[in-house]
């Protein structure tokens, strides 16, 4: 290697070194540490013996692990709902429907409110003596006034409503960004060819923002597995029993609620990581096929 090339290589390595160091320090080290600790009986103090895959096996043998995993998959329902509503919102804004400037800010408002506050808001709304049951009783539907947070499916339903509500603004802005990137002449051409609103939407717009929708799905699915903690904590606290507990909430419970749960919490975090990685790969494969023609 010539001196010049060596110098260039050194400069290149120096240039990327800060980023690599930051990534190693803040991503690789914690990740490696979690994977290692998942194979130990770490209690947060001095007990740190290597126990192989015992934490994983123990988890797979509990009923609550499968229940919480099932809850995570049920929570997925929020993804298509929020993407769909976000898409409708973005279309309305894109088409500059009456009052669009006002609604553009309004839709984004929930996004800037803390997740815990949104959670407590929904918990209050759906509490037994809360406004939702109050309205139901007022309109003569007392039989529908139930303990929303005291049953598995209704409890999960309330959490999903909160997730959809808080994310509509973000989804709308994301989709609007995608729509704005489309050359307006494409729509003009479609209009001149006689395509109506629905034809323009389904045959022109949607295929052209396929990558945005893909990103939205991948991100939302990963978020559904890893970002529900503040909602579960503030709305149902995972109860009754483990009925509304999700995997990320279980990680917290294992880590901070049990004397020797840190090793198990790490094992759960590794399982969570594996599931999210697998789902992301599957989604990308499906999405690549769907988007092939547009590229």
């Amino acid at each position, binding site marked *: 290697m010539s001196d010049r090339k060596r110098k260039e290589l050194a400069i290149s390595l120096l240039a990327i070194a800060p980023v690599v160091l930051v990534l190693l320090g803040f991503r690789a080290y914690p990740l490696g540490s979690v994977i290692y600790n998942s194979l130990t009986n770490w209690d*947060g*103090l001095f007990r740190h013996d290597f126990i192989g895959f015992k934490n994983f096996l123990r988890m797979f043998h509990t009923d609550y692990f499968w229940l919480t995993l099932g809850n995570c998959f049920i929570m997925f329902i929020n993804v298509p709902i929020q993407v769909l509503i976000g898409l409708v919102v973005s279309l309305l804004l894109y088409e500059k429907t009456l009052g669009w400037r006002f609604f553009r800010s309004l839709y984004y408002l929930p996004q800037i409110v803390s997740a815990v506050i949104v959670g407590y808001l929904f918990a209050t709304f759906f509490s037994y003596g809360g406004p939702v049951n109050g309205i139901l009783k007022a309109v003569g539907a007392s039989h529908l006034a139930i303990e929303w947070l*005291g049953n598995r499916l209704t409890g999960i339903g309330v959490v999903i409503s909160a997730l959809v509500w808080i994310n509509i603004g973000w989804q709308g802005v994301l989709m609007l960004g995608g729509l704005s990137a489309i050359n307006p002449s494409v729509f003009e051409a479609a209009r001149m060819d006689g395509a109506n609103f629905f034809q323009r939407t389904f045959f022109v717009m949607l295929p052209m923002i396929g990558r945005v929708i893909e990103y939205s799905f991948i991100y939302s699915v990963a978020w559904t597995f890893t970002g529900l903690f503040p909602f579960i904590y503030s709305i149902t606290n995972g109860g009754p029993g483990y009925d509304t507990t999700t995997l990320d909430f279980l990680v917290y419970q294992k880590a901070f609620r049990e*004397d020797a749960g840190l090793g198990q919490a790490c094992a759960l975090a590794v399982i969570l990581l594996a599931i999210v990685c697998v789902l992301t790969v599957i989604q990308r494969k499906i999405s690549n096929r769907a988007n092939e023609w547009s590229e």
Partner: protein
Amino acid sequence: MVSKKVCFVSAVLMIVSSWTVFAQASGKPVTLTFWCGSAYYNSDEAKKPQSEWAITRIVKGFEAQNPNVTVDVTPIEVSSETIAKFKAAAIAKNGPDVIELWTGSYLFPLKDILLPLNKYIPADDRKNIGGWDAVTYNFKLDGEILGYPIGNNYAGLVYNKALIKAAGMDWDKNPPRSTEEFRAALRKIKGTGVVPFGFDGSKGRILHYATIYWWVEESGYERLVSDSEGKTKYADDKGFINLMTYMRSLYADGLTNEDAATSVDYESKFSTGKYAVTVGGVNNARTFEQALGQENFGFLPFPSMSANPKVKASIIGGPGNCVSIGNYTNNRDLAVKFVSYLCSKPAFIELTKSVTTFPSRTDVTLDDLGWTNDPFRQKIYTLSKNFAFWIDNSIPAFQYDEMKRFFPNVLTGKLSASDFAAQMDKLVKDNM
């Protein structure tokens, strides 16, 4: 060669330790760090500048007696998360010198990072402070003492006198003495159209205040501990099954609030006269008393569930908190001196002007505290001479968490008492 190294290390250690002692003795400034929890400040104080808190006044008193010492007070909320932070800080040897923690089963797993105080505690403190067993490792008399007991809270049932009177009863003169008498009284209250017994099953207060009391009373502490250690079974524990069945029957008979499993507002409903009875401790009684007025606020010791109780106490409580010292501290003697000062009679008298909990010192009288005209505190003070210790501090935390998690299901009938007991046994077995 090895002996040379040993000599060198010993010499360095001697120099460092004598320098520390010399530094303290010679007036070199020393800073003690204290993570102080809610046993030392109340929610009203938390809204004011820290300089106005009672603990700040107490700390200033200590600093005045020890001119070269500064105490750096950091308010914390004692919680599982804080304990995890403390563990991490202790391992890194930069944790606080002194910290407020929970007693009993929450404290014992931290033994490896706490300073055993047995040889440091002055005889006067040993004699005049109650509740040492709550901070002694595994409750064994000869175990390591891991902190000074503080924050004595006591709980029983609180009631709205006007609503009880409207149902034709006077609990001041004739309180229900058994759980069946209590059930009959709740039925009478229900007849007046008021919710008789309101509480929140999911947050745990009903469980660790009332329900669990009946378990101790009927089964006794030894059985409780042996269940939690897997030596006996919850499923065979009549006391455990009976109390769960009793609470379920109160809910099923409509004698509790309909949303007992998920309620978030039972305290405000009791305070506004919508519920006749609820559970209450000295920490929330002041709020109830202010809302209902002293003339309408009543405190009822627990009616007895068992004809032959193994523990007869009437109230549950004791020192739920303690102040401990990290074993990594460079200022052991000074930290012990500070903790002893925090638990001195003048410090408790000053503190009780602010916090609701009772002093753990037995030589502090009602007169010292200015409570001679306070019937509620007088009653609790008398009853506190004989109390059942908190169960959530007596059994492993993960088992109590499981009880708290599934108690609402038992209440609403989704899980039977016997299935719940079997589930507890499985949990114990899985964790052995």
